[in-house]
């Protein structure tokens, strides 16, 4: 792995709701190298987005980051003041959200919104900003950028809006780009175009990307390394190719089993029985044990530690690597 860009160590983020304490992120550690693409995969509520928002330090009441360190280029983001964080957000670390329509301010033109980011982080004169906004739109493949820059979000199609958001995100040449399910609201052809675009920008800007998704097939084409999360914890981590060849955690195997094979052959897709556990009342032992077909006595009692069976691989399972029962 090259230089470490982002290193999350034992991050704990909890939400203190009226119903109880939600352990959204429960002591996770992960690293992202410079220009590396990391995929974070998990079901809804597994803590992917909360991890990203913790990096951004945008966890709001009743949530709190309770422990751990988030090192970005060696500096602990959790020790920064709010003012210092504002200078980092959007400039060094940028983020793109899932829903492109609601992520843009409906009453401002695309150009104005890009210019605001530029003005805040880079200064520049009014003319320079507009010029840069047009360049950025061109860079993300929006046709007729001179005309488009004056349009409002509702005049853009979904794919174009997502492109505009990406343009806004890369406007200050960030080193880390967090993509939170950027293509969930888009159809498959547009999805492919967006990832092609991000791949190109990644090369051009030398960014590291942190892709949050629940789609393992997206990860396969776009990421170098994958982290699988379940109920607030990392359960497996592996380089992409190895994960598909030899998944160690039963949950990962379940996820891979629910992707339809290209050649057909199966009439029914496998699914994982049961539901994601309630984050307020987690089961004893392994969080996945109630749904795991291989779970044994130990799994119900003790929580498995995240261990490294091979270089670059981590897995949290007592029965890691054992064949399906």
């Amino acid at each position: 792995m090259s230089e470490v860009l982002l290193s999350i160590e034992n991050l704990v983020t909890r939400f203190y709701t009226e119903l109880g304490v939600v352990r959204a992120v429960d002591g996770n550690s992960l690293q992202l190298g410079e220009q590396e693409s990391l995929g974070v995969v998990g079901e809804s509520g597994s803590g992917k987005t909360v991890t990203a928002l913790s990096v951004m330090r945008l966890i709001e009441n009743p949530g709190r980051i309770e422990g751990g360190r988030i090192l970005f280029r060696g500096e602990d983001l959790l020790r920064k003041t709010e003012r210092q964080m504002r200078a980092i957000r959007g400039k060094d670390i940028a983020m793109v959200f899932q829903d492109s329509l609601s992520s843009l301010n409906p009453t401002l033109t695309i150009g104005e919104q890009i210019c605001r980011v530029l003005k805040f982080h880079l200064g520049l004169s009014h003319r320079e900003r507009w010029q840069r906004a047009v360049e950025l739109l061109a860079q993300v493949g929006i046709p007729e950028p001179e005309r488009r820059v004056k349009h409002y979000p509702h005049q853009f199609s979904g794919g174009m809006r997502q492109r505009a958001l990406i343009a806004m995100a890369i406007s200050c040449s960030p080193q880390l780009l967090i993509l939170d399910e950027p293509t969930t609201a888009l159809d498959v052809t547009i999805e492919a175009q967006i990832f092609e675009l991000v791949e190109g920008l990644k090369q051009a800007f030398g960014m590291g990307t942190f892709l949050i998704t629940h789609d393992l097939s997206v990860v396969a084409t776009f990421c170098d390394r994958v982290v699988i999360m379940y109920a607030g914890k990392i359960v497996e981590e592996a380089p992409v190719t190895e994960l598909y060849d030899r998944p160690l955690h039963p949950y990962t195997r379940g996820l891979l089993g629910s992707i339809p094979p290209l050649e057909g052959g199966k009439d029914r897709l496998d699914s994982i029985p049961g539901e994601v556990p309630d984050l307020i009342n987690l089961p004893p032992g392994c969080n996945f044990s109630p749904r795991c077909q291989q779970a044994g006595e130990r799994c119900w009692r003790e929580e498995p530690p995240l261990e490294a069976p091979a270089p670059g691989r981590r897995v949290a399972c007592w029965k890691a690597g054992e064949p399906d029962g």
Partner: protein
Amino acid sequence: MAKRYVQGGEYELGAHRSLLQEFWHNFKKNKLSLAGGAIVLLYAIMAIFAPLIAPYNPVEQFDAPRGMRNPMPPLSRDVEGRLFLLGTDKFGRDILSRAIYGTRTLLELAVGSIAIAMVLGVAMGAVAGYKKGTWVDELIMRTVDIMLSFPTLVLAIALVGAFGIGSVKLGPFTLSNLVKIMLVIAITYSPRFARVMRAVVLQEMAEDYVAAAKVTGASGLRILTREVLVNTIPTIIVQGSLMMATTVLTSASLSFLGLGLQPPRPSLGLMLNEARDYLFWGAWWYVIVPGGLITLAILGFNLLGDGLRDSLDPRQARRVRR
């Protein structure tokens, strides 16, 4: 609408409208709100050009010819043969001219007090919404609650009682009676704006675009002033136009009660008050002219407000309904 295919397989709509065109397109669909707009426009013209339209000086008294006495019915003439289209009042003043000038003061009052109420209320509501959950929020909103617990007219009467009738001396400044009444009405209505504003600010602050702005490094205050406030404008405009109708009524009521504008200043509310004594003498024109003008103004503002609500943003229709 023509769809144009562009690079990348994504299409766009051929015609792009500005937000203003969009608004007009939606607004003109509703004939009732167009009618409301027309009424308001007519009143505005009448108010602005009052000196040109009014046939006589509104405070000048004319003498009834032999065999008649003031108030004279419509289309009667005075001693010198001057025609009074809508008749005269008990002092022999031209009702048409008084009604036109009365409309002018009524609109001045309504517009002025709504403008002040909006500024006060928006400021209170925005601060409360931004400081949600803190003591600042509590202080502002509980004050608002207290003010709203009084019926508007009662609160207005109490405030006039506190200020006194007529112009008010405040240290080195003297508030004219008109400005004082504006302030009184503004104070009674500002809590409503504050409540609506706070709700809209809270709602907007929860939108994704605010999170997206935070991600780009904008501070909370910057987000409030630059991003959120623009998005509250439609709601506030709608609230203002709907409230305009009730301020018209409140200011007319104050005048009617003798707590508002003072004679001889022409005021529709005062005219109604004076006309009351002549109602059973058969002087129907004396009541109908000011009463009708007040009613029509309220109707116009309400229709316009409804139309604005539906057309400024379809989402707002659900939001503002009271």
